[in-house]
């Protein structure tokens, strides 16, 4: 039905020139014609994985190959149709994306709510010089409508345009042209993470420390009950693969990590197989998180992350705590990165007031790590005895303030100050177990500061 019915497509196509009199109107664009092939290859992998070895064994290799081929061709046809009906267009400060073969959908992305733009090059796309473009919008639960795939220069140009439009520049068009002429990639990164440090840091992750324990258990099992050795071995292999996967993925994801700061945004480039370039406007950053993982302490390493109101990253870790600004580095680097991200104040120099001694009744282990600081424009809190985590929230980004007091806290005259920031990240943006008076004063001071 849809293949013989090009009406929606042509309609939009003819509509575009008619509206082209508008200032920011650009013609409707298509994605790169090679995209269906890349998508088709992706489907092929899914099919192969779905059939798996068992399937091949049951059907026989030739039948299995036929199934794969058939589904592959179908996937390619579908991907081509999808490509044919997908288009995007800039219109009046908004990005419009049209998709859908059976059900047409026109999505409008309000650029003034753009949180960050990421240009991503998966391995295959990288080989043919293509990239996809992903946008994060305030309040979005997932990455908005990836444009896959565009030629790399086009993707970078579009990114610049989108970011400029998102700043709501009064003279967007002229500024655009200038920005497009200037090189999009500054040549000298402010920060490069050495591969050796990255690998060592991931080897010091808590997951890898578990591996020797698992090995010891298996050996013990083998000695104790030789009959169990098969299950032990299988278990060990599964467990090892499982635990190794995350650090390896993280190391590969952050491989060749480079940070390029510019006047009003941070650009992060990273990735071994999949090259990703993410641009985060500085005025969108809602919190900066500095973490001292326990096992890194003797190296003196820390990691820094930034949160924004969009949904950033795709790992479970990044979903809950924001995108890395520094996957591993020393304190001086962390200081630099964090101050750049918050444009100015040195987060690590903010004096932190410890929680009162009696808070040990509420947090016997964690009490010494608890701390809170408040400056002209930052709320800083620290928690975590084993791996201390410091969260710095610009006061201008605080949405609301809460003070809570549990029963035990009431007996001890303690209270917890929470600040709420936009976005779905679960950051510990709270100063736990403060003196009640101090907590209420802090809440009031934060409130007075956000009034400005």
């Amino acid at each position, binding site marked *: 039905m849809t293949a013989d019915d090009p009406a929606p497509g042509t309609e939009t196509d003819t509509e575009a020139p008619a509206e082209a009199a508008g200032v920011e109107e650009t013609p409707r664009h298509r994605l790169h014609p090679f995209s269906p092939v890349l998508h088709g290859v992706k489907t092929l992998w899914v099919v192969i994985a779905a059939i798996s070895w068992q399937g091949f064994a049951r059907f026989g290799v030739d039948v299995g190959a036929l199934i794969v081929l058939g589904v592959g061709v179908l996937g390619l046809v579908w991907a081509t149709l999808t490509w044919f009906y997908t288009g995007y267009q800039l219109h009046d400060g908004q990005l419009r994306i049209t998709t859908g073969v059976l059900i047409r959908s026109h999505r409008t992305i309000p650029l003034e709510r753009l949180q960050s733009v990421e240009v991503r090059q998966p391995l295959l796309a990288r080989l043919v010089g293509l990239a996809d473009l992903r946008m994060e919008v*305030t*309040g979005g639960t997932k990455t908005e409508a990836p444009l896959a795939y565009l030629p790399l220069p086009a993707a970078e140009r579009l990114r610049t345009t989108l970011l400029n439009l998102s700043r709501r520049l009064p003279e967007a068009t002229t500024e655009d042209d200038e920005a497009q002429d200037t090189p999009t990639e500054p040549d000298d990164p402010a920060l490069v993470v050495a591969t050796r440090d990255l690998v060592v840091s991931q080897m010091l992750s808590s997951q890898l420390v578990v591996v020797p324990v698992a090995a010891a258990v298996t050996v013990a099992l083998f000695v104790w009950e030789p009959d169990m050795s098969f299950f032990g071995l299988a278990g060990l292999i599964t467990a090892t693969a499982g635990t190794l996967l995350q650090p390896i993925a993280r190391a590969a994801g952050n491989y060749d990590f480079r940070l390029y700061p510019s006047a009003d945004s941070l650009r992060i480039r990273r990735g071994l197989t999949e090259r990703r370039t993410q641009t985060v406007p500085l005025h969108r950053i809602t919190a900066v998180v500095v973490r001292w993982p326990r096992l890194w302490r003797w190296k003196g390493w820390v990691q820094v992350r930034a949160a924004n*109101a969009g949904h950033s990253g795709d790992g479970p870790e990044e979903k809950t705590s924001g995108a890395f600004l520094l996957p591993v580095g020393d304190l001086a680097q962390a200081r630099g990165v964090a101050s750049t991200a918050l444009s100015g104040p040195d987060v690590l120099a903010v004096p932190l007031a410890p929680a009162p001694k009696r808070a040990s009744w509420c947090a016997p282990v964690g009490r010494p790590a608890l701390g809170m600081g408040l400056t002209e424009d930052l709320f800083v809190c620290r928690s975590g005895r084993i791996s201390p985590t410091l969260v710095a929230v610009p006061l201008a980004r*605080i*949405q*609301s*303030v*809460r*003070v*809570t*007091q*549990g*029963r035990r806290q*009431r007996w001890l*005259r303690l*209270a917890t100050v*929470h600040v*709420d*920031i*936009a*976005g*779905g990240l679960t950051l510990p943006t709270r100063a736990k177990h403060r003196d*009640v*008076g101090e907590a*209420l004063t802090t*809440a*009031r001071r934060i*409130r007075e500061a*956000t*009034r400005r």
Partner: protein
Amino acid sequence: MSAQHPVWETWPGDVDWRPVSPRLVPVRILGLLAVGVPLAAGATLAAWLWWPGPWPQLVAGTAAAILLVRALLTRRAVRSWGYAEREDDLLIRHGVWTKRLSIVPYNRMQFIDVSANPFQRMFDLATVKLHTAAATSDSTVPGLPPDDAAGLRDRLAARAEREREGL
């Protein structure tokens, strides 16, 4: 208004806390029973079917005791609710065991919900909920008579509008 802990009253000094309607007590109790009674009945039935002896009575008795205590506490819980409209923010406090105070600046308000569940409608009450861009914001004022709720909503909306213009 209950003055259980003076420090919650002192902050920020010149606040005129307004209570929610006492009619919220039956609403809350009905809500509690609507969930609690089927649960208790289910647990008792299960005990009666599978565990002979004194268990069914014990389960039923415990469930009834828990419900009774919760119901008795409802009164205090309702009385602990209070809200105060200030010049440029809204304060809400509540909680018997765990005390909560939340401060929502008008210029951070995204939208306002007024809702009423069937029990609230029976007693002619409504709930006003403020939404900010943060999902963790806790800012609900339950148990307002519909006129008060509408009035609060309109005032809040107007103030949010004014604050935004000031930006």
